[in-house]
């Protein structure tokens, strides 16, 4: 257990150094420092992958019933999506969102008691794969769209109002690049969000013999899904680009965060992650 503590602390430290170094690199407009920060986060990510794998292997699946594991997995998924976008779009800038979010989420997972949750065993494998997997990837995509959306709105307003761009703004990628992140996040994120949400309903049907139980999480998720569906539709067929989808992606991510943190930990729900 001690060795796991050391591993966890090393990962947290690497994420912290990655986040701080990136901010410094951005403030002092040093590309090399930014790259070093991304490599630090990547080292943390590799150790994090090993950490999750080992915990799963040694716990022989028992970890799947611990909220700590899921929060840690959320942090890992955030970085997985960040590295995919970083690799495809060469978007160093998203590290500004990814590294601190991963740090906060991972640190939070360390603070949660590892006590076991009362998760019904039925269809656990499928539930994990579809419900959690697709929802987490979708939320990670939304996190990236959130970061890109904030940067888009900032840069757009600077160009529109013709106000002076500081050094950090000058270093930002183009509006089109940020819009492309939103495009990917919405087009890939919404189907995954849908799979995640409806696989949950199917799982509920097997467990409680009813699809909808009026659980606060279910009601909230349906609301978020409707807004997401609207954004997906407008983005895919209505030719929405730029400010509107950026704002809506920001809203959906904030709602997802409220759902993940507020509902799972602070309300009476059968999605509770409280030990």
């Amino acid at each position, binding site marked *: 257990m001690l060795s796991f503590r050391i591993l966890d602390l090393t990962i947290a430290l690497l994420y912290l150094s990655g986040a701080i170094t990136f901010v410094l690199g951005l403030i002092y407009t040093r590309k090399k420092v930014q790259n070093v920060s991304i490599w630090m986060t990547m080292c943390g990510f590799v150790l994090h992958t090993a950490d999750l794998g080992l915990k799963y292997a040694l716990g022989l699946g028992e970890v799947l019933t611990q909220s700590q594991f899921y929060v840690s997995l959320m942090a890992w998924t955030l970085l997985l999506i960040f590295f995919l976008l970083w690799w495809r779009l060469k978007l160093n800038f998203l590290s500004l969102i990814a590294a601190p979010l991963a740090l906060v989420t991972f640190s939070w997972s360390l603070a949660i008691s590892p006590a076991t949750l009362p998760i019904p065993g039925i269809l656990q494998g499928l539930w994990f794969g579809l419900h959690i997997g697709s929802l987490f990837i979708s939320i990670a995509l939304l996190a990236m769209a959130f970061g890109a959306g904030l940067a888009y709105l900032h*840069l757009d307003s600077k*160009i529109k109002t*013709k106000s002076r761009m500081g050094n950090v703004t*000058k270093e930002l*990628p183009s509006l089109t690049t940020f819009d492309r992140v939103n495009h990917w996040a919405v087009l890939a994120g919404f189907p995954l969000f849908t799979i995640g949400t409806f696989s949950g309903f199917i799982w509920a049907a097997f467990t409680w013999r009813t699809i909808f139980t009026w659980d606060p999480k279910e009601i909230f998720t349906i609301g978020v899904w409707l807004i997401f569906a609207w954004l997906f539709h407008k983005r895919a067929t209505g*030719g929405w*680009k*730029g400010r*509107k989808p950026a704002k809506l992606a920001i809203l959906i991510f904030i709602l997802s965060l409220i759902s993940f943190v507020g509902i799972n930990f602070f309300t009476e729900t059968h999605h509770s992650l409280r030990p």
Partner: protein
Amino acid sequence: MEQKIHLFGLSHKTAEVEIREKFALTGFNPVSLELISKDGPVYEALVLSTCNRVEILCVGNQDQEQVKGKVLESWAGFCGAEKDLLSRHIYHYTDREAVRHLFTVAASLDSMVLGEPQILGQLKDAYRKAVEERSTGVIINRMMHKSFSSAKRTRSETAVSSSAVSISYAAVELAKKIFGELDTHKAMLIGAGEMAELAALHLLNQGLKEIMVANRTLERAQELARRFGGQAMCLEDIFDYLHHIDIIISSTGSTSAIIRARDIREVLKKRKNRPMFFIDIAVPRDIDPDVNQLDNVYIYDIDDLQEVVEENLAGRKEEAQKAGEIVEQEVDKFEKWLNSLDLSPTIVDLLNKGESIARKEVRKSLRNLPPDTDERTVQTMEHLAESLVGKLYHEPIVFLKRRAREEGSSEKYIDLARKIFNLDEEQIPDNPHAEKKRK
């Protein structure tokens, strides 16, 4: 040291264009024109002649007046003009001041447009020519190399050259901020004017996919389209094409707006809200400013662009202070090297380095001996190492002294010795000449 660095010059800051033209030194060869001679006061020289700057950098003897007299005589003689007239306009720096001036010029901190990098290329050309003419020696060679590396440092460590300081470049920078890479984007030039054409040219240089030219007279449009390798059209037809266009540069002589917000609303629908960037260089403006209210549409007129340029220039001035500090550090380093070119400091450095290596090696060897090794053996080993250093460096030191005595100047040998034994502790890359070989 018997030598002194001198820099004589005329620049846009000290002499008007007529004077600079009169004293231009294009084609001046310091060797064939006998500015440098074996017994004369000038030993090395390099000439820089551009439209904004004419300078002679030279190494001469300690008698300033003698060197100045020789340089001005040669300079005025080459230009067929009066020496007095030249004398009234030139600036003259020596030693540290000359080095600082050269490094400042190379870093583009003395240019008409602060931070514009052309001067570095011109300096490199001047140096290449001087090397071909064999008019440079140890000091100017080192000084030029250091001026290039110092300029590189100021560029990488400050933002003195990073922002656009001309209207057309500011427009290109903004286009890149909106679209990223321009190689998949199309532009339309409406009307023609020098600045609009320049902006179009800069966009094409940035890899723009295609440019269309619209004009009131089709012939003029065709003429411009030929120049840009694009397509020509009449002004009336622009709305048939606008939905394909990402960047519009407009500079017609029209007295009222030719593109209005309601027209663009329709165009945006057709192009599924892909962003559009309007550069309106016309006065009065060609494009209704309300267009800027639409989402995904950006419009900059001539005043907006001028403002961007002025802000960038102000930013460069701030950065120039930082760059000035870097130049000062580099001048310090160069001065230190220059002072080391005297024989005594080099001998001291050589012996110090040798002794420090010897001491280090003795310490290492002593660790391998048994702990009860007697004091006499230790002393013998230390003595052996020190004698070896003395003996090994004896011949090179005698050689340097002899050169100094017989040739009067031993800089090139001292410089070589410093390089061979790396007395200046420089970081040498694994393959320093790789770039040269590629060329």
